[in-house]
């Protein structure tokens, strides 16, 4: 068989001879690859964005819920049966080596009235540790203190969205009074902007008050038990599993649960949330990419079609080449490389177009594009593979022609 460079030269020349046809054939591959690259990049971008948003909540957070209620009506959800006492919380805060801090949290949607406006926002009752756990400092003012919690002081810390809606832009909320359920609360701090969370919720549309005040004004709990859910921060993202295990064994011991008893509490971590949400995005990306892949296969069929036409058209050329000494393998290689070059060049152009158009659209619609090198290599490999798979049949057909018949072909 003749050398690879010789075959590349022959194939390249044949493709250049029919420039428009070669381009149109490659276009099928170009569009297919561009679509795959585009879908993958947008999908990866969305995934990265969700991950970043979830990480803004805190990567080392473990959520702790009270137990589930069990009765004749069936089981309730997590947190329906109070089981964690204030003493339990204190033990978690002080006794566990992998736990940095813990803070209970309760939410209620409630209209808040300022001097000028009324705004329906989320009221969250919590303790000062919460802001440390969420890594959420104030941009001005201060956070309420442990003594505010102890005395159920009517002090509030406000998120930026809620502040703007209640007081208008440019007004300093510090020192302003808002009424929640007819009780006057003084704004003592404005939190830094946090943005949307992984679910698309505006995290800045919120007012935080001491949990004790929340319980007096909004929703009474059972004095002995910690209401709502508890945010726990592990010492680092790596110690999350250890923190969960420590919490579980501490609570089981304190609640005197036997080995056969089920937990009367539950924990979950942000890592689980992250994986759940990214899985959803991955499914979407996979779905869209498979549609794009179908167009790549259609492009491959286009290559095969044109190669079959080309073999028929060039039957006499094949006959001449065979007569002067081309071996079947030479003919096979020539046509196979032609299909491969068409598909590979189409693949490369498709990658360029996919990334280019992706960036244009991403800039226009505010999407995040993330093109992984592995996907680029995969796209190139797949398009070359498409060339080989769909080029093989026409090339075999060409190499098996009978030289006498081929020479006589009109």
């Amino acid at each position, binding site marked *: 068989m*003749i050398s690879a460079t010789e075959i590349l030269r*022959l194939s390249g020349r044949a493709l250049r001879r029919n420039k428009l046809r070669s381009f149109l054939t490659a276009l099928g591959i170009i569009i297919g690859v561009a679509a795959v690259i585009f879908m993958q990049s947008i999908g990866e971008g969305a995934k990265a964005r969700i991950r970043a948003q979830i990480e803004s909540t805190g990567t080392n957070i473990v959520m702790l819920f009270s137990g589930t209620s069990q009765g004749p009506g069936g089981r309730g959800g997590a947190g329906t049966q109070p089981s964690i006492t204030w003493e339990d919380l204190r033990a978690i805060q002080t006794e566990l080596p992998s736990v940095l801090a813990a803070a209970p949290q309760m939410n209620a949607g409630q209209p808040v009235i300022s001097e000028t406006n009324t705004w329906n926002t989320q009221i969250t009752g919590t303790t000062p540790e919460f802001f440390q756990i969420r890594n959420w400092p104030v941009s001005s003012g201060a956070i309420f203190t442990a003594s505010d919690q102890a005395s159920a002081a009517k002090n509030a810390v406000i998120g930026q969205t809620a502040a703007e809606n209640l007081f208008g832009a440019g007004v300093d909320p510090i020192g302003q009074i808002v009424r929640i359920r007819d009780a006057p609360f003084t704004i003592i701090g404005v939190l830094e902007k946090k943005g949307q969370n992984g679910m698309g919720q505006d995290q800045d549309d919120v007012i935080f008050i001491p949990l004790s005040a929340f319980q007096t004004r909004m929703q009474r709990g059972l004095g002995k038990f910690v209401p709502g859910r508890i945010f726990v921060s592990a010492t680092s993202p790596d110690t999350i599993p250890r923190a969960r295990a420590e919490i579980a064994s501490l609570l089981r011991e304190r609640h005197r649960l036997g080995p056969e008893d089920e937990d009367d509490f539950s924990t979950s971590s942000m890592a689980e949330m992250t994986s759940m949400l990214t899985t959803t995005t991955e499914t979407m990306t996979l779905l869209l990419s498979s549609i794009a892949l179908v167009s790549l296969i259609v492009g491959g069929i286009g290559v095969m079609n044109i190669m079959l036409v080309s073999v028929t058209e060039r039957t006499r050329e094949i*006959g*001449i080449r065979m007569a002067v*000494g*081309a*071996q079947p393998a030479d003919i096979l290689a020539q046509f196979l490389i032609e299909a491969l070059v068409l598909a590979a060049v189409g693949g490369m152009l498709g990658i360029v177009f996919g990334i280019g158009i992706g960036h244009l659209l991403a800039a226009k619609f505010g999407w995040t594009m993330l093109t992984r090198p592995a996907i680029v290599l995969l796209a190139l490999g797949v398009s070359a593979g498409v060339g080989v798979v769909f080029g093989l049949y026409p090339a075999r057909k060409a190499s098996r022609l009978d030289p006498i018949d081929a020479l006589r072909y009109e």
Partner: protein
Amino acid sequence: MALIELRALRKVYQSGDSEFAALHDVNLDIDRGEFVAISGSSGSGKSTLMNILGCLDSPSQGSYVLAERDVARLSRLELARIRNEFIGFVFQNFNLLSRTSAAENVELPLIYAKVPPGERHRRAKEALDRVGLAHRAGHTPSQLSGGQQQRVAIARALVTRPPLILADEPTGNLDSATSVEIMKLLTDLQQSGITIVFVTHEPDIAAYAARKLALKDGGIISDVRQTPMLASAAGAEVHA
């Protein structure tokens, strides 16, 4: 030893249940340097004989020894090698690659002989020079006359320096003046030592050969030696 030795050669075509023998009991020796014309009506088996001589087809039975090699039972791959190395083809309809320059057409067999590009260009130029077309090397077939195209085809047949050139009705598509030029060129090549076997149905073209074979119904019916039309003493006497 003869360049070509055919013994009890038989070529059978199967069509349904019936068999048709296109060639039967062909025995033929052609020596190196001979100038042979093959004639016969259509269906006489001359095309089949040429295809077998050219290693484009294999006989059903019998033996074919070309340049001391038994080529009767070779694979497609081995036949391709033999064609490249030992045989140059000239066709009635020239069979040049269109939209490809004369020089590149002539280079074609050298590509498959794995001759490096530099030497390829040089030898193609040489071959075109030999047929008097060095000044047309860059022209494509459509820019050349029929006679010029056939000269390019002859240059392509020459370029691998084969011992044998097979020509199938080389003047069939040419006017009589051009036909004379082509036959002169072939005579010239034969006198330089190349064995030339050509098929023709025109007696005045067959007259250029030193030996005339006639085929009928798949067998050789006559084999006569004659003084070729352009007999320069040297070429004719060796084989007379």
